[in-house]
């Protein structure tokens, strides 16, 4: 029906046509939707008029100090794709399966004009403080930008830091690993293939650093980190990481730069979220070990405590662990939920840039929640089994899905085949659990039998 699924005879299309991907969810009540349309429109309108006011002052000020500014026209569009995306967020997922707006949103993020660039909130929150002795850098230290598009949608831009074929060096700890733009993109596709729909839409984009960042930003600090390299390329850097000499600048060729564009969620003022430490958080030190790494009965303790003692929360954590294991992301220290949906809401799978670092290694410790708790959602297990079958092979559907990104290829073949291998290992862990505890105990029915 949509452009995204239009390719006939494709494995991906077959997958999405499978009954498992057709299970309908209960009807949504007003409390099951994140935002009210009127409220959001009002919020949007206010933002646009504030922007136009500020832009006027800014242009006057710039003219006074002889800086040329590119005045980008802003359009107020009540049908903007990002707006529809925000309105579609509900208790069950970030978007629905048949939502053709997501493809529009991806398209817009990839091609819409950029009207402004700025640092992200967590970078600004650091207030320019750099502590070079910190081994684990706060997330605000990493180079990423908030880009505003012509229709006022916002996207988080993470520039390319590593070539596709490069792996994380073997001596690197998970907390110093690179941030990979292709991992962000691939994580979104994987999440969609797994039918979780908990990752905000991400698309790759080639950015003109000069025109689309340097010339559009109003942030003096951001402008000051731009320079021209000896090879005549335009470069910019993350201030703290550059000052601390942990990371060099990111450079374009000569000013075109690859990166991932990740759609913003509704602002915290209209849709508050809370960030919760992952019970299976790592020690984030060279030597320390977290409790779960030494205590095989760790899950028994977790199960007894709120909010993991009731509802779907623990099962959601296990979904997330499976997702992270497939990508090889060891850096899931926190997860976020929308406050509005309470404890049973889905978990947002944010910040996946540290996945897909090593195709030759499967980090089994990421699966600890599954292997220690020995429980899994029935719907998840059925889909995983489906994706292990040759007709729906995970690597094939992922390759096909990723092929739709403008920056293709997103993942190299070894990464794709690693997905199949890891999927096998997940299923083996589940099998072991079933053998030990019985299917009744392990596979938790969350859906009506569909097949």
């Amino acid at each position, binding site marked *: 029906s949509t452009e995204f699924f239009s390719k006939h005879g494709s494995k991906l299309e077959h997958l999405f046509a499978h009954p498992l991907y057709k299970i309908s969810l209960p009807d949504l009540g007003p409390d099951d939707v994140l935002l009210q349309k009127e409220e959001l429109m009002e919020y949007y309108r206010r933002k646009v008029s504030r922007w136009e006011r500020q832009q006027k002052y800014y242009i006057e000020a710039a003219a006074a100090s002889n800086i040329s500014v590119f005045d980008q026209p802003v359009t107020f569009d009540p049908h903007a794709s990002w707006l529809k995306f925000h309105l579609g967020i509900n208790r069950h997922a970030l978007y629905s399966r048949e939502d053709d707006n997501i493809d529009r949103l991806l398209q817009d993020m990839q091609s819409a004009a950029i009207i402004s660039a700025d640092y992200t909130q967590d970078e600004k929150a650091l207030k320019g403080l750099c502590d070079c002795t910190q081994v684990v850098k706060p997330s605000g230290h990493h180079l990423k930008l908030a880009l505003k598009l012509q229709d006022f949608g916002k996207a988080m831009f993470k520039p390319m830091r590593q070539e596709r074929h490069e792996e994380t060096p073997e001596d690197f*700890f998970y907390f110093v690993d690179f941030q990979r733009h292709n991992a962000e993109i691939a994580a979104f596709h994987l999440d969609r293939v797994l039918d979780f729909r908990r990752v905000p839409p991400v698309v790759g984009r080639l950015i003109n650093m000069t025109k689309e960042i340097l010339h559009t930003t109003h942030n003096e600090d951001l402008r000051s980190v731009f320079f021209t390299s000896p090879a005549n390329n335009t470069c910019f850097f993350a201030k703290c990481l550059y000052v601390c000499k942990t990371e*060099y600048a990111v450079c374009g060729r000569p000013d075109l730069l690859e990166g991932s564009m990740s759609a913003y969620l509704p602002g915290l003022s209209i849709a508050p979220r809370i960030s919760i430490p992952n019970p299976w958080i790592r020690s984030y030190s060279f030597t320390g070990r977290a409790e779960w790494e030494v205590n095989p009965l760790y899950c028994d303790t977790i199960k007894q405590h709120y909010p993991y003692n009731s509802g779907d929360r623990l099962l959601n954590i296990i979904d997330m662990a499976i997702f992270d294991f497939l990508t090889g992301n060891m850096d899931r220290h926190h997860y976020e939920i929308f406050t509005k949906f309470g404890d049973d809401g889905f978990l947002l799978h944010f910040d996946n840039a540290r996945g897909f670092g090593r195709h030759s290694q499967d980090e089994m410790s990421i699966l600890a929640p599954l292997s220690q708790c020995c429980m899994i959602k029935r719907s998840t297990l059925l889909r995983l089994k489906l994706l292990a079958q040759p007709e729906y092979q995970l690597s094939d559907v992922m390759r096909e899905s990723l092929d739709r990104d403008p920056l293709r290829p997103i993942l190299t073949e070894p990464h794709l085949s690693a997905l199949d291998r890891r999927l096998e290992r997940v299923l083996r862990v589940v099998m072991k659990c079933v053998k030990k505890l019985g299917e009744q105990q392990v596979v938790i029915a969350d859906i009506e039998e569909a097949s």
Partner: protein
Amino acid sequence: MILFRKFRVLILMVFLVACTMHIMIDLLPKLEKRATGPNSGNGGCSCSHNPSEEPRNWAKQRARSAAEPGWPNKHTLRILQDFSNEPNSNLSSHSLEKVINTGDKAESFKRIKQFAPNADGQKTLIKDTRDGRTQPVQTVSRLSALFEHPLYKTDLPPLTDDDTLFNVNTDIRFYPKAAGNQEWHNEGNEEDEEYNPTGEATAESYPNWLRFHIGITRYELYSRHNPVIDALLKDLVSQSITSVAMKSGGTQLKLIMTFQNYGQALFKPMKQTREQETPPDFFYFSDFERHNAEIAAFHLDRILDFRRVPPVAGRLVNMTREIRDVTRDKKLWRTFFISPANNICFYGECSYYCSTEHALCGKPDQIEGSLAAFLPDLALAKRKTWRNPWRRSYHKRKKAEWEVDPDYCDEVKQTPPYDRGSRLLDIMDMTIFDFLMGNMDRHHYETFEKFGNDTFIIHLDNGRGFGKHSHDEISILVPLSQCCRVKRSTYLRLQLLAKEDYKLSSLMEESLRRDRLAPILIQPHLEAMDRRLRLVLKVLADCVEKEGYSAVVEDDLDGQPASHQRPGGR
């Protein structure tokens, strides 16, 4: 006068020498056990060895001094403690951060005192090491053929006391007195007898690092065929490391290593593989320092016959036993960790690339590095630091004056010390040296204060050379193309090294093969040197064409015909 006074103690001297010989003969079996190398057996009679019998090939030279191994243990301990308090080295690779303090000075006196109880043998040492030139070629290597060439046999002016860094008859003997003999006894080391200040030890019994220091003159850091240099290179690789400290100041991580024989060296760990090139977007001041560049620079400098780089050797160091376990530096010790791949890693503390992301990891605990011999302590031999007139801006956007003013050299030529003497020509030598390596980071250079303005310049800190083999940074040659001046000796040698028989890349390859960490440079780097040499000669040819040979080429050979070799030494 000095000699006349000596007659009075001559009899006593002879007696003491005889005693020493006895002690030495007694100790000989013990020493043999400790000494390494096949030739160490002659160590006991090194005082009588004839330098002309030594093979030309310096890889074969294994001459060792008798007293070098076997220092008393208590002594070692004391030195160790003293050094650990003094992480500031005397070799200031980054001259701006140079620190001299009184603790350093006292320590240096103590050290000199131990090794130079009597400096009478000194003159012979210097002479011996200079005489090695006349011996016949024993191998058919290109390198020995090069050193046989008349251009590599030119003489230096005769040396006076003012031309040696340490005036052996006064200075070195003076140091123990200055430090006070009392301190010596305070140590209460009875075993020290054999090194007591009245002095039986001969110059040959000094450790190689001290012999290297004593050999420094107004014209060179070491003489052409000085066996001490090869012995020193061997020491750098084989001496056991007794203490390690982090060098403060400096931008990138460097360690000061102290050896069993109290010699010291600057350790630069491997940061990049041989194949890696500097990324094109890196500025010269963000580039990594490369240990192999340090090693290669020493060999290149020797092949160019400049001899202005302190000896450097590559060494595989055990990070656990030879760094972590022997350092008393908490800051350094604290940064050791075990990586997920079970390798030992550390990152130290410095301003550039000292973070987990740039940790230096062994395999699992062996790490490569370069060890550069220390120059004499600043307390004993002060050095002057000069700003390179062609210094870069060290700024991302700003340009330096020389980059915009084509007549910049005319200005420099009129400014002291470039208005007279050979300083400007020395800068030209350095420019050529840096261009061949691709080192853009020559912001300062140093000289020994004692020699005033009429002396060579020391080529320290070459770690940023050999970063890009596919790129020739023409801007490094700007001093040469702006000034259009060169020493005749340098010019002739460069022309020689461009010939097929003496091809620079082959010579470098052969020379570098002698290093423990060979291969030091990959083939593209070696070939780049040939290409760059041709570019240098092209610039000079253009200069000669434009301004005439005599205006460009300064005859520093002083009537010595390049084709004729003077017989013997002085």
